[in-house]
């Protein structure tokens, strides 16, 4: 099992979600987050005072996947989340030791 965390542009979120549903991914956790990598922020001006806003709004997707699905999901996200500009975000993968479904205590990939 792998955990996938993807930080993407808010404007790409709907397309990514739809594409993932098409390849059969039904579970995900989505968070509205703020941050920045190499992308610079923007400035806002209120009555002549300038403010630099460097933490930009992003969407974070989290899902835990059976090993067999990982490559397909990564490909789908890469394809649909890309705009080609700085600020498109990143995908992080990490190994997961165990998953347990709270309702019936199923374990491992069956619990996903």
């Amino acid at each position, binding site marked *: 099992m792998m955990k996938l965390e993807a930080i993407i542009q808010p404007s790409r979120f709907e397309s990514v979600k739809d594409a993932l549903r098409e390849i059969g991914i039904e579970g995900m956790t989505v968070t509205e987050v703020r941050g920045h990598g190499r992308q610079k922020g923007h400035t*806002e*001006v*209120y*009555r*002549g*005072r300038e*403010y630099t806003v460097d933490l930009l709004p992003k969407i974070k997707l989290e899902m835990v996947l059976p090993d067999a699905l990982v490559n397909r999901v990564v490909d789908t996200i890469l394809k649909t989340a890309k705009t080609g500009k700085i600020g498109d975000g990143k995908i992080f993968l990490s190994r997961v030791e165990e998953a347990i479904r709270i309702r019936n205590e199923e374990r491992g990939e069956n619990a996903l």
Partner: protein
Amino acid sequence: MKCAGWKCSFSLVPVLGTILLAVVPLSAQQTPAASATPSATAATPEIPKAVNEKLAQLDKDVKAAQSSADNAWMLVSAALVLMMTGPGLALFYGGLVRRKNTLAIMMQSFALMALITVMWALVGYSLCFGGDGQFIGSFEHAFLRGVGADPNPDYAGTIPQMTFMVYQLMFAIITPALITGATAERMKFSGTVLFLTLWFLVVYAPLAHMVWGKGGLLNASLGGKFPTLDFAGGTVVHISSGVSALVCALYLGKRSGYPKQPMPPHSLVLSFIGACLLWVGWFGFNAGSALAASSLATSAFVATHFAAAAAALGWSAAEWFKNGRASALGAISGAVAGLVAITPAAGFVGPMPALAIGLIAGVVCYWMVTKVKAIFGYDDALDAFGVHGAGGTIGALLTGVFAQQVINPIFGAGKAVGGLDGHWGQVGNQLVGVSIAWVFALVGTLVLLKIVDLLTGVRVPEEYEIEGLDITQHGEEAYNLES
């Protein structure tokens, strides 16, 4: 060429006005003259008596009808002016502060709606409009004694004095509320309440009497030494509050973290709604100051609207030129600046001068708020001085330039009023009025702040400021996102 065009348009106005003046009395006189002629020719002893009774009855009916019409407009105007404080100003200021201070700033406006109302009933109205002193009213109408259905002919001869009283009250509410824009995000609630109550008694009441009260030093129509034109409160409301706001900002000092830490407005949506309510409410403020549903009210209504529009464009254009963009906050701030500047002029100028006053105010206030404030470094948090102090001063001076007797022959029929009429001395009178208002507000505010500082203190401790005034002063939050 341009100059000739200007002169042309201004000379047209008096000409048109004279024609109007000539036509209106003629048509008005025709009816009574026609009805009077037959009665005079058929003169038997009984008929004139019956006719006289009938005429007296008609006269009474006409007066009653006029009184009803004027009273209807004045009650609506009073309600419109109250709407400027709550919700207008409360939303405008509420959106400009940081989230943690939203309720505190709104509560300050609301507290004044309650507090000044009570003070007004006890002594406020009387101190502003009682007696005929040079500097302050009297206790003649304390506890609203003698204020009832009968008109007070000194001020408004066609409406109940009770209506005049409640209309003027709404001005007394919004004026101290404007000052909270400069003290925002750091002044104690107890200190604010005490200071603004005293300020109303010590600064507002005398100034209102001097400018609008019978026998007041600056009164233009009821025997003042320096006749200052102030139709709806350029000196009384905007210079007084704006200059006091600057004193408060200097006395309190900067907000913790200013200007390094960003302090952007938490909701320009609230400010936007507030500014639009202010614009609408201002029709009651300025057109209502005609104190009748008259053609002068229409003239003031139009001037008010035109100045607001021109000022919104002026501020936006300046901003566009400077930053390459026109912001929503800029447009609404410009409109408010224009409304401030036209306030003293509203009942004295035509639509074209109103556009000019608005445009000038929009550009100058933009410069005050963005440049002058930065140069001197005072923390006028929501720009009460930059908009009301500066806009009020510009408006009061330009009133002396643009006032015309065709709009309002306040000095008597045919007598020049402002500079464009040929009476440039009026600009000097305006300057005297403006200077007295400035000095009075400056000294009064400084003395009162010292006193209040000793009694309750004026500023919250820094840790309260960081936590926010909503929680530390009122024990509640504007936005409980978990509930």
